[in-house]
Each structure stands twice: as C-alpha cells, then as structure tokens.
C-alpha cells in the first residue's frame, strides 16, 4: 500500500454569480466540481490543464485559501476540513507550504532576504532570532545561494535566484508537502532546468511531496510521478506519469499531448496525426451536460452528450472518465 500523505475527496468549489440591486444569486461558477486525488509521501503529483480548468482553485483549497463548498481533505489520515482554526495553525499550515509562479512578486520588496526566509518561522514558531538566523543560513546553502547575500533585498537578485529563495522560504518550516504553482514558467528558458533539478534534488533529500500546478506537459513529465489531467473543474484522467504519457486514454489528454509534442515539419505525416481541437473550453458557469468535453470531442457519440461518464480503472495506477471505455 502506498504511503499517502494527502488526499482530496470530492472537492467542490462553486462561486455564486450575483446580479442586480439585491445581489440575487443567478448562477454558480463551478470552478472545481468533484475532484479527487492522492499525493504520496515523497512523490510529485501534477495537476495539468488549461486556464479555467480549476487546477489553481484546487491548489488554493489545499493551501486553505479557499473555503470548499463540499468535500474533504485528508491529511495523514484525518479530515482537516473538520479541524478548528487553532488545530490548522499548528498541525497543518506549517506542514503544507507553497512556491509561487512569479518570483518577482512573491517577495515583499521591503524585506531583506533573511527576513523573507525567516517570516514563516517568525509567524509560526517561538524560536529565537539566533535560531532563525541559523536556519536561514542552512536553507541558503541548500538552495545554492551564497550566505553573504543574507542582508540583500529581493530586487538585487535575478529571477532564477529569487525562485531559489522562494524555495528556501517554503522549506523553512520543514513541511511535508510543497505546492508548486507553475514553478518555472515565469523564468527564462535557460534557467528553468536549474530550478527543476534543484526541486528534484531537494525532494529526494527531504522526502518531500510536491503538488505541481502546470500547463506545460513536458515540464510535468520531467517533474512528476503521477499526473491528473483537468478539464472544466474535473479530473478526466489520472495516471502514473510514464503510463499516462505512453498510453493516454482520454481524447482530451491525447489532444493536449499532441499539442505539446515536439513535431518537426517533416515528421508530421509519419507520426500520429496531430489532433487539433475545435472551439474553446466552455464557461464553468454553464458547463455542458453529460461529458463536459463532448462539445470539443471528435469522437463524441450520443451518450456523451447525455450521461456523465463513470470512472474506469485501467491497470493499477491509471483511470479515465470517458464513455469510450464503457
């Protein structure tokens, strides 16, 4: 049995849409609509999808930045949605940290690096200044930033260096899970590999779990152990990374992979024909009935428009929601 650190069960987040003088609720944006996933200890799980798919909302829920409409988050065996604020503050928050996409805006420009990295310690622990300082130096070593930079301000660093500092801050409290929201997409191409390699090294060293939010499939394949493909608030396919990329099942997954595949002009005819989806993702305010993907799916049949597809397990670590596997 896999060692599961965190599990999301049927997570739902609906935002009300109001209208008029009396703020009458006229509809709901179904940002996340029944999402379940598991994150194993020491492993990386990625949520992949286009903007509006609900991956960021899901991650925000894990980070307690959203109040869920329903669903539960099981952390080391207990449901934290039932915990009190005080319990969360001591038992959950310090264990789940985050690195954000944009290293230029994720640090208070008025704080020195030592304070940026020590902030989680100041807020969550009662350590002395000396203890904090030692921890900060230790963290700087781990992420490959020279110790003498401790008194400098964020703007004195390049994007790549800042992202290293953001990683150091996320590790300050020795968390079990780090949520990585597009950790390299704001960086220059030649810098991305540095950061991805650093994150992989730190994962092995500290037995960290990562929840990665990404839209770039190649990055995801390189970073993660398991992948969940999201579309319009739902996970449509989930699998162990290699299995999923070698044997994609859902038509949407296939289209995404095809879109991100490096195909040279002359290979085009030999390899599998490029899949170009028609149309755009519908609004989560009014998602299609049946399978949510059927409006753009070239293989959609009659049932797809009417019935919500069930989950089909294919092998041990792979499942899909699609009528084709009924």
């Amino acid at each position, binding site marked *: 049995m896999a060692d599961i650190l965190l599990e999301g069960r049927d997570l739902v987040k609906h935002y009300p849409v109001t209208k008029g003088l009396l703020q009458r609720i006229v509809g709901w944006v179904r940002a996340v609509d029944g999402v379940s996933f598991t994150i194993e200890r020491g492993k990386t799980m990625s949520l992949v999808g286009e903007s509006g798919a609900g991956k960021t909302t899901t991650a925000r829920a894990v*980070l*307690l*930045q959203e109040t869920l409409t329903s669903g539960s988050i099981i952390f080391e065996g207990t449901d934290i949605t039932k915990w009190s604020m005080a319990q969360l*503050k001591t038992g959950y*928050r*310090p264990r789940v*940290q*985050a690195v*954000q*996409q*944009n290293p230029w*805006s*994720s*640090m*208070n*420009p*008025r704080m020195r690096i030592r304070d940026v990295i020590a*902030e*989680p310690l100041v*807020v*969550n622990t009662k350590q002395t200044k000396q203890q904090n300082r030692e921890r900060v130096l230790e963290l700087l070593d781990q992420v490959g930033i020279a110790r003498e930079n401790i008194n400098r301000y964020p703007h004195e660093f390049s994007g790549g260096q800042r992202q290293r500092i953001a990683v150091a*801050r996320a590790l300050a*409290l020795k968390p079990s899970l780090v949520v990585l929201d597009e950790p390299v997409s704001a960086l220059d191409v030649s810098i991305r590999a540095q950061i991805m390699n650093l994150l992989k090294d730190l994962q092995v060293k500290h037995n960290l779990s990562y929840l990665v939010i990404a839209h770039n499939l190649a990055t995801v394949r390189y970073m993660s152990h398991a992948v969940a493909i999201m579309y319009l608030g739902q996970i449509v396919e989930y699998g162990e990374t290699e299995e999923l990329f070698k044997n994609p099942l859902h038509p949407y997954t296939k289209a995404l992979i095809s879109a991100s595949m490096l195909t040279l002009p002359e290979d085009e005819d030999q390899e599998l024909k490029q899949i170009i989806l028609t149309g755009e993702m519908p609004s989560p305010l009014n998602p299609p009935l049946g399978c949510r993907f059927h409006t753009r799916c070239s293989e959609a049949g009659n049932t797809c428009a009417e019935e919500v597809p069930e989950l089909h397990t294919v092998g041990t670590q792979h499942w899909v929601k699609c009528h084709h596997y009924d």
Partner: protein
Amino acid sequence: MAAIRDFTIDNKSLRKKSRPVILQPNFIIPVVILTLLVICAIFAPLLAPYNPTVNSLKDRLLPPFFAHGGSTAHFLGTDGFGRDILSRVIYGARISLSVSMLVILITASIGTIVGIFSGYIGGRWDSFLMRVTDVSLAFPAILIALLMAVILGPSFWTVVIAISLLGWAPYARLIRGETLRLRQADFVTQARIIGTSPLRIMGVHIFPNVVNPLIVLATMQVGLVILTEAALSYLGAGIPPPTASWGQMVSDGRNVIDTAWWISFFPGIAIGLVVLSGNFLGDWIRDKLDPRLRQL
C-alpha cells in the same frame, strides 16, 4: 516602452551616472526655499524689522524700495495701516507652515488607516468607505470651510478642521488603490499561506509598501493645503486679523489695487514660491520613489 523592457539594463551602470543629489536643481532649489520658510516661521521675531501688527498711520501705503517714493526703511512697502509688508510676509510663514504641517499629519494618518482597512478588508465596509471618500472628494473644500466658519467662528482650529474634514479623502483613495494592488500581490498571498494574521499582513507587508506613495502624495498636498488656507484667509474665513497671514494680506490690497499694487503682490508671490517648491519637491520625490504615480 515595451521594447526597452525587452532587454536588461543592470542597475549598477545606471546608478553610476546620475548626478549627486546636491547638484540637481529640481531638488536643491525647492529645498532651499522651503528651508527658508521654516527659518522665517521659527525665527520671525528676530528676522522681521518691524512688529507685524502695530499700526503706524504716518507710514501708510508706502511703496517698495525700487518704486518711486519708496525707501529701504520699508523694503517691500507698507499697507493701509502703515504695517511693514516684509515683516508681515515673514510672520505669515508661521501660519502657512503650522496649518499645512498639522493638516497633513491629520489627513495622512486618517487617510492611510481608512485606505488600508478599506482595501484589505473589502466587502461592505469597503463600498461604504469608498462612497464616503468619493463624496468627500467631490465636495468643494472652500464651501465646507465657509460653513464651518459660520458655525465655529473663524480661528486657527476652524481652518485646520475645515481643511482636514475633506482632506483625508485623496489619501484614502490612493492608499486603498495601492492596498488592493498589494492584496493581490503574490507575497501577500504567500503571507496568508504561511498563516500570518491580517493585522500583521496590514502592518508588516502592506504598510511599508504604501509608505512611498504616501510620502509622495503628502509632499504634493503641501502646496494644496497652503493654497486652501490662503484662500480661506483671503475670504475672511481663516485666521482672524490682525495676525499676519498671506491670504489675508492679499485681500487687504484688493480695494486699493489701483493705487497700491504691492500690498497684494508680495504675499501672493510668497504663496506661489512656497507652493511651487512643494510641488517641485513632490515631483522630484515621486520620480525617485515611485514613478508609477505620474498621474497624481
């Protein structure tokens, strides 16, 4: 200038070439004038050649030294009561300076608190406070001051209260805007993720980041406050005579403008110089601290 942002310029090479502060005329001239203002205000009794409030009817309406009939005894001439204009201008600095400093202290404090609170807490509080701010911004300060002068009677404190009553609104609006922007900033989200309390977020993460725009706005408001104070004094709703205030002095010359232009002229120049200096200094500080605020 998107194309300029397309390549990197390293900060060190930029900094090397800018002139030292002391040689920048946009900085040094206003600073000298404003320093002079402070010195005049503090040491008025030592600097002024005459008592500014004592009438001397034999010296009525003397022109300044360079005009026909003028003398260096009364450098800038005298008014209808024979009071020395130069001495009154020097004493007038006291009113301008104390009113503007006090008003800015009061309005900036209130505005900052309202702005940060409104912007960070949001919701109904925010909509309410912002409606109040909008109405305050759209209300003519002079009219409120006239009303206050009728109710409370003209006095130093009437002026301070009357200007402050609406004066906090620009600060509240600016600081709220900045707070809204900062609230969305990733570093504030990050602070929430690690469990920072709202009060600490407002104090440690938001306030230090609104100090620059606050300083810029406050400097730029110095001129406005001085002008408003002068206008109130001019209208007779300000500090009551015989205390010398620049607006009042301009008003004294209104009815003798055909014979004694200097009574109105010099105090007006004093107001203009000080306001100009305040505005220039504000511009300079803005360019240094926060060029985004160009539209202020």
